[in-house]
C-alpha cells in the first residue's frame, strides 16, 4: 500500500478564527483571546486536541471565538467540567477561562479543589475587578470604595487577593500578567502550558465600558516584573520602563511577600513541578489495575 506523506498544514491565526467577538470596543478579553491564539500558533497546538472550557460572564464567551473544541458551561463551574474532561481524555489540552466572579465568587469552591487536585490544565483568570456582563456589580476583587450598582455608596470590603489565595491553597504554578502586554501574556501561557498541573494564570483585564480608569495600562510605574531563568521573561515592550526583580519561583515565602503587597507584580510567583496530580494518580491507578472480565462481575455475590 503506498502512502503519500502529507506535510501537516501549519496552523495560523486565521485557522483559529470563528466569528467576530461580541465584546465592547477596547475590552481586555480581545487581548487575552488573541494572546492565546498566538500561543497556540507558536506551539502549533493541534486545534482538534484543544478544548477551551469557560463559565459565565464576558470571559465565558471566549471559547466561542477560538476554533478549537469548546465548552461554554454554567456559571462558576468550568473547573468541574474541565476536570471530568482531563480525567477521561488526558490526550487533550485543556484551557479554562474564568472571570473574577466566576472563579472567586460562585465558583470559589471549585477553585479551591481544582488547585488542590492539581489536575493538568491552564486556568486563565480574567480579572476585571467587577461583574461586567450583568452591568457593573461588585465582585470579590472590586477595589474598596469603587461604586457599583449593588454597592452604590462604594464597595464595602477590601478585595480578595487571587494570587495570595492561589498560593495559600497550595497552587503548583502561580503567575500574574495583564491583557495589554501581549508578549508577556504569551510567554506566561508558554510557561503555564509547559507545567504539568493546575497552572493558575491571573490576568488583569481592562473593562473600558464599566471601569475605564481602573488599570493605567499606559503607565508602568505601578508594577514590577518578576524575573528568573526558571521564570517568565518581562514584557519586551515595557521591560526597560519599570522595575525588574529577580525572584526564584521555588521560593514560596518570597512569593507570599510579593502577593501581600499593594504593588502589582507580573511574572512567575511560584512553581512546584513536583506536586502530585490527581488526574495522574487516577489514570495510573486504572492503567495499573489488572483488567477483569465481565464473567467475574458477580463473583462477590455468589450464594455458595
Amino acid at each position, binding site marked *: 500500500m503506498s502512502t503519500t506523506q502529507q506535510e501537516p498544514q501549519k496552523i495560523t491565526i486565521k485557522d483559529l478564527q*470563528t*466569528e467576530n467577538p461580541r465584546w465592547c470596543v477596547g475590552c481586555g478579553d480581545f487581548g487575552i483571546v488573541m494572546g492565546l491564539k498566538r500561543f497556540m500558533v507558536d506551539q502549533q497546538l*493541534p*486545534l*482538534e*486536541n484543544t*478544548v*477551551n*472550557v469557560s463559565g459565565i460572564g464576558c470571559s465565558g464567551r471566549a*471559547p*466561542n471565538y477560538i*476554533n*478549537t*473544541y*469548546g*465548552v*461554554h*458551561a*454554567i456559571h462558576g*463551574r468550568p*473547573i*468541574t*467540567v*474541565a*476536570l*471530568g*474532561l*482531563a*480525567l*477521561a*481524555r488526558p*490526550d*487533550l489540552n485543556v484551557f479554562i477561562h474564568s472571570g473574577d466572579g466566576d472563579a472567586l465568587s460562585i465558583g470559589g*469552591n*471549585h477553585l*479551591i*479543589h481544582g488547585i488542590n487536585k492539581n489536575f493538568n490544565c491552564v486556568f486563565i483568570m480574567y480579572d476585571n475587578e467587577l461583574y461586567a456582563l450583568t452591568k457593573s456589580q461588585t465582585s470579590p476583587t472590586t477595589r474598596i470604595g469603587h461604586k457599583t450598582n449593588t454597592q452604590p455608596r462604594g464597595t464595602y470590603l477590601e478585595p480578595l487577593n487571587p494570587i495570595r489565595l492561589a498560593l495559600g491553597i497550595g497552587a503548583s504554578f502561580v503567575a500574574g500578567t495583564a491583557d495589554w502586554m501581549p508578549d508577556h501574556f504569551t510567554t506566561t501561557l508558554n510557561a503555564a502550558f509547559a507545567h504539568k498541573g493546575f497552572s493558575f494564570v491571573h490576568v488583569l483585564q481592562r473593562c473600558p465600558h464599566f471601569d475605564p480608569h481602573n488599570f493605567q495600562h499606559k503607565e508602568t510605574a505601578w508594577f514590577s516584573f518578576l524575573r528568573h531563568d526558571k521564570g517568565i521573561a518581562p514584557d519586551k515592550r515595557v521591560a526597560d520602563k519599570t522595575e525588574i526583580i529577580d525572584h526564584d519561583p521555588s521560593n514560596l515565602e518570597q512569593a507570599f511577600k510579593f502577593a501581600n503587597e499593594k504593588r502589582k507584580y507580573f511574572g512567575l510567583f511560584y512553581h512546584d513541578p513536583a506536586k502530585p496530580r490527581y488526574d495522574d494518580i*487516577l*489514570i495510573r*491507578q*486504572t492503567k495499573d*489495575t*489488572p*483488567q*477483569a472480565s*465481565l464473567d467475574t*462481575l*458477580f463473583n462477590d*455475590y*455468589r*450464594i*455458595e
Partner: protein
Amino acid sequence: MNIKRKISRFELLMDAGFGAQKAGDILISAFAKMGKYVYIEPMIPAEISPPPRTRPALSGVIIRLGDLDLTNIGNDTDLILASHEIVLDRRLDDGETNEKAQVLLDMGDQKNNGESYEQVLKRLTKMGLKVISFEITAEAQDAIKVLGGKGKNMYYLGMLSAIYNMPNTILVEEIKATFGKKLKGDILDKNIAIFQLGYDFAKTNIPFSFDIQGVPHGKEQVLIDGNSALSLGVIHAGIKFFSGYPITPASSIMHNLARLLPSYGGMVHQAEDEIAAIGAAIGSYFGGVPAVTCTSGPGLSLKQEFIGYASVAEIPLIVIDAQRSGPSTGMPTKTEQSDLPAAIFGSHGDNTKIVISVANVIDCFYAPLVARYLAERLRLPVFIMSDFQTANSYKVIEKPKMADIKTVDDIPDFVLERFRLKRLPAKIEMVRDSQLNPGTPGGMRRVTGLNTDAQGKVNYFSATNQRSHQVRNEKVHHVKRCLTEPERFGGDSGEILIIGWGSSRGSIEEAVNNLTKEGVKAGGMHFKIVHPLPEKKMLTDIFSKYKKVVTVELAYGDPLKHPPLMMLLRDETLFDVNCIICRATGRPLQPANIAAKAREEIAKTYESHPSKVTV
C-alpha cells in the same frame, strides 16, 4: 410447635451500633444458601450512634423469607426480637404486626427500667400480641462483657437461626466469611460461641419454630442488593467514568464502583460537591467517555442547573437518583418516591429529559444500559430513579444475562423489552448538526447553554430558539412513540386498575394477585419509564376497561393535592385517575394495604367532586 409456612416475616430490633444490620446480612446469606428467597428492609437511623435506649436509636432489620420469589417486603410480621422495650415500643407505632405475632423481648434492661418495661408489656397485651420474655444467659453475658458489650447481635442471630430451623453450621460458616478477615481468631471464636449459646437457648426455651421450605439455589444464582446491582450494571453498560459526592442512600454505589471500576478500565472521581460531580460527568461525556453521576434528593436539587445545561448543550448524561424521604434533608434513611416531579420538571425553562425507574434488583442491573442507550442516542439527560428500599433490598436472582456492549446500539432486545421500549429511529435530529467528539480533526465545535442555530452559532432569534425547543422536545417524543404497553397484572378489565411506578411494582403485583384470588376483578399496571409516558390512546384504551383507575404512591397527597403520578396520568389522559395510597411515612408500600384500599375504593360511590385522593 413447628409452624410450616410458605412465607414468614420477622424483625430484629436493636440500638444502632450493636450490629443488627450485620446480623441481618448474615442471616439472609444463610437463608439464600438454604435455597430460600429473601427480601430485607434495613431500618437505620440517619445518625451513626444515637444514644442507646432511646426511640431514635432504633436500628433493625425486617426480613421476609419464603420458598417462592419475593417481590416486596410484605405486610405484617410474625415475629419480633427486641433487645429492649424502647426500640420495641417505637416499632409498634408502625402497626405492622399480625394478630398472631410473637414478641421475644430481652428483659436484660428491666432491672433499672421496670416501669418502662411494664408500660410496653401492657401495650403488647392490649394489642393482643404474645410475649415471650427472656434474658441472655449468664455465660453469654460474660462473653459479651469480654467483647466490651458487643456481641448481643450474635446471640440474637443464634436465636433467630434456631427459630427458623437453620442448621447452625451454615451460620457459623457465614459468620466466619463475614468477620474472618476483620476479627482476630479469639474474638471471632467468642462471637461464634455467643451465637451458639443463643442458638442452644432458643432450641430449648422457645416453644415454637418456623419451617420454610427451600430448594437449594443453582450455581448461577446470586444474592444482591439494588445499589450493588446498579453498580455492576454501570460496568456492564460500558460506562467508564463515575463521579459522585457522598449522600445517603446513594453512597454505596460509589463505594462499589471505587472498588471495581478500575478493574474494568474506568475510574471513580469523588467530587468536592454535588455540582462538581455532575460537572465532571458532563466533561467526561463531552469527551466521548460514557459517564454517570449518582445522588439523592438534596443532591438532585443542587444538580439541576447542569441537568438543564446538558440538554441544551446536547451532552449525554446519566443521573442516578436513589430517592429518600424529602423535602430538604427529610428522612435520609427512609424510602419515598417524591422526587419524580423534580426529575421530570426540575431545572428552569422548558426541560427535556428521560426518566426511567427501577422496580427491583434486576432492573437495577439493566437500567444503566438503557440509560446509556437513550442518553447517547438522544444526547439528553437520562435519570435512573431508584429509592432507599430498592437500594438496600437484597434478592436472590438468576445471574443476569450479559451482552458485549461496544456501542449503545449493541443493547439487546430483551433489555429494551424489559423497559417496554422499542428501538429508537436510526436518525434523530439534533439542534446542532455536528456532534463530534474532541480529538476529531476538522470537527472543532463549541457547545454552550445559550441558544444556537444548527451550526452551533449563538443567536437570540425568535425562529431559531423556537426550533431548538422543538428539536429537543422531539427527542422526548421519539421515546414516547417507542413505548410499548406498560407491564400489567391481573385482569385486563374489571372494577379497578391500580397503577404505580418504580419500587411499588412488587406490592402492586402481590395485591392484585390476592384480590384476584378473592374474586375481585382487579388489574395492576406498572411504569418503568415514567417520562415520557406512553401516548394518550394507549393509556385510555386500557383505563376505559376498568370502572376505577387509581395510583398508589410513596409521595404525599391529600384531597387538595394530587400526588405526582396521579397528576401526570390525569394530565396525559384527561381520565378521572384517583389515588388510594399517597403516603410519605417512609415505609414501603404493602400489598395488604393496597388490597384493603382497593376494596374500599370499589365500594365507594362518588358524587361530583372532580378528584379523589384517599388519605
